[in-house]
């Protein structure tokens, strides 16, 4: 099977083929072929590279929209397989050039709205305070600009990814 994957901003294509019956696979990535022993376990994979014996124990949790959260022993990374990453990611840096859409990085309650449309804001100036788990988290401007939209109001609950403020 052939998949298009995107990881850490890099696009590549990958071919996965089973060899025989016993959990051995041939993977071609970046034009390079490798043989691995691979078996699914729980929410992950146990992989051993045949050439050098390297053992890799990884979790792979499917998200919505074709992305997987891959957890290697020392880091977590999102991989998109045959699809597009969701527009509303974890961090609100979506939007066209010049336009910055600040979204909620976690669910919570809007405790205070510090700006209104038309305000001039400096880089790192506070925009909205969201309370989650009893801690106040101040979301700041990713760049200097003018607030063109405030999409929430004080006291409401927001989901992760919800648009809060647009700055141009």
């Amino acid at each position, binding site marked *: *099977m052939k*998949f298009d*994957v995107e*990881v*850490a901003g*890099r696009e*590549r294509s*990958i071919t*996965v083929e*089973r060899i025989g*019956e016993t*959990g051995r*696979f041939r*993977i071609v*990535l*970046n034009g390079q072929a*490798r043989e*691995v022993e*691979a*078996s*699914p*376990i*729980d*929410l*992950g*994979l146990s*992989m051993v590279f045949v050439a050098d014996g390297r053992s*890799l124990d*990884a*979790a*792979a*949790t*499917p*998200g*919505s929209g074709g992305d*997987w959260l*891959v*957890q*290697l*022993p*020392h*880091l*977590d*990374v999102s*991989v998109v*397989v*045959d699809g597009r990453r969701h527009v509303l990611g*974890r*961090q609100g840096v979506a939007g066209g050039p010049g336009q910055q859409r600040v979204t909620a*990085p*976690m*669910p*919570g309650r809007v405790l205070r709205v510090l700006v209104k449309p038309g305000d001039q804001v400096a880089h790192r100036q506070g925009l909205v305070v969201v*309370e*989650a*788990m*009893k*801690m*106040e*988290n101040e979301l700041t401007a990713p760049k200097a600009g003018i607030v063109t939209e405030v999409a929430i109001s004080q006291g409401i609950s927001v989901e992760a990814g919800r648009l809060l403020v647009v700055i141009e």
Partner: protein
Amino acid sequence: MSRLKVLIANRGEIAVRVMRACRELGLGTVAVYSEADRTALHVRTADEAYLIGAGPASESYLRIDRLIDVAVRSGASLVHPGYGFLAENEDFAQACLDAGLIFVGPPPDAITRMGNKTAARHVAIAAGVPVVPGTEEPFPEELPDDALVAEAARIGYPLLVKAVAGGGGKGMRLVQSPQDLLPAIRTARSEAGSAFGERAVYLERRLARARHIEIQLLGDHYGTVVPFVERECSIQRRHQKVVEESPSLALTVETRRAMAACAAAVARTVGYTNAGTIEFLLDEKGKFYFLEMNTRLQVEHPVTEIVTGIDLVHWQLRIAMGERLTIDPERALAPVAHAIECRIYAEDPDQGFMPSPGLVRALNVPGGPGVRDDRGVAAGFTIPLFYDSLIAKLIVWSDTRPDAIARLSRVLDEYRVIGVRTTLPFFRWLVAQPEFAAGQFDTTYLDSMLAARKGQAFVDVTDGDADDAAMVAGLAAWFRAHQASAGAPTAPSAGHWQRAARLEALR
């Protein structure tokens, strides 16, 4: 004769911790839970459990009336408050006594005197213990701004705004210069009001390069107070402890004994009983100052248990039931190992430590020698928004501090939480820092390090990592595809993914 029951007026890891001690002492366990905690580990661990209200703590875990009602209904004899919530609330302690229940903690008036940070400073001074310079009385909310500014100038900058009812870094703000004073006081008041229902604050000088050292103690009802070897909690992020260890590299045996004596003196001055902790700041010259007292069990109590072999929660319960404290005081002061605790939170360290609540799909908790797992979350639990996002305390120990750090590094690599982001990548970074290994840090260390990183991710995705991740995702997609076509000869557990994908679709 039916056995005694203990109501645990808390949730999460500390509720589970207390229940374990109850079991070991033959006591029954009664849990309370909010609507957000129906499947929480503390509910599953308890003998009995009672729903006490909606998710927000103010409607459940902070409702004294409902807690007392459950204690009476269930026939509990003792109430253990854990830490946080009502653990340092004298009204709750009093309400327990009024209902004929034993409160597993100090007497209400000791909570009142020591829980109020400014009153506690008076006690320390009366006990002959040096205190950090600061305001002697809390500020009423109606105090005019210029009076605040004048008082701050008298103490000197940098200074800290602290909630009188504070704890855990909430309602606390560092102020470097006069223009930041008033906004800091406003934020601190607001946070304190939300966290503790009490908006009063006071000011305290920020000591330069100070280390946070604290002395655990136990007191019984017959006048015996036993202080323990110190804990160091200087690794803090925004005034919240992140790593705690015992013993401290920064203390001589003489300073340990002096600090322990001061802590015991403070406790005796207020007729303190049960478990408590006196926090000190240690300056660069080895001089120490009383900071405040926590009139309850602390998050970091396990490091003391490990280095002394003494079970503090057992003793809390035994003291509450009227037993005499028979610990050898020399044993309490002589650590037999070096222990380090990390607080594993459901927070994304690469997004400014934003909370990352959600469904914990699976956990790989490390084992083997020198590891203690104090966890409040099991696989299948959805971490709610309403509370502190602590998943687990990971405690390691070994003979020496370098060996404990080597073990910590091994253990952090084994630990995996699937489903939510955690602070594990941050700890893997921290444990590799030369300053951490050398023990060269003070309470500002971590915030300075984090500020200097300017949001840089705690792990770099190398080309090799990206290749690995791509292969893992490719294989996972292959298994999912072959699992979907019935009868394909794949291993059974590939079905997890199908399930997971279907669950995502249902959201």
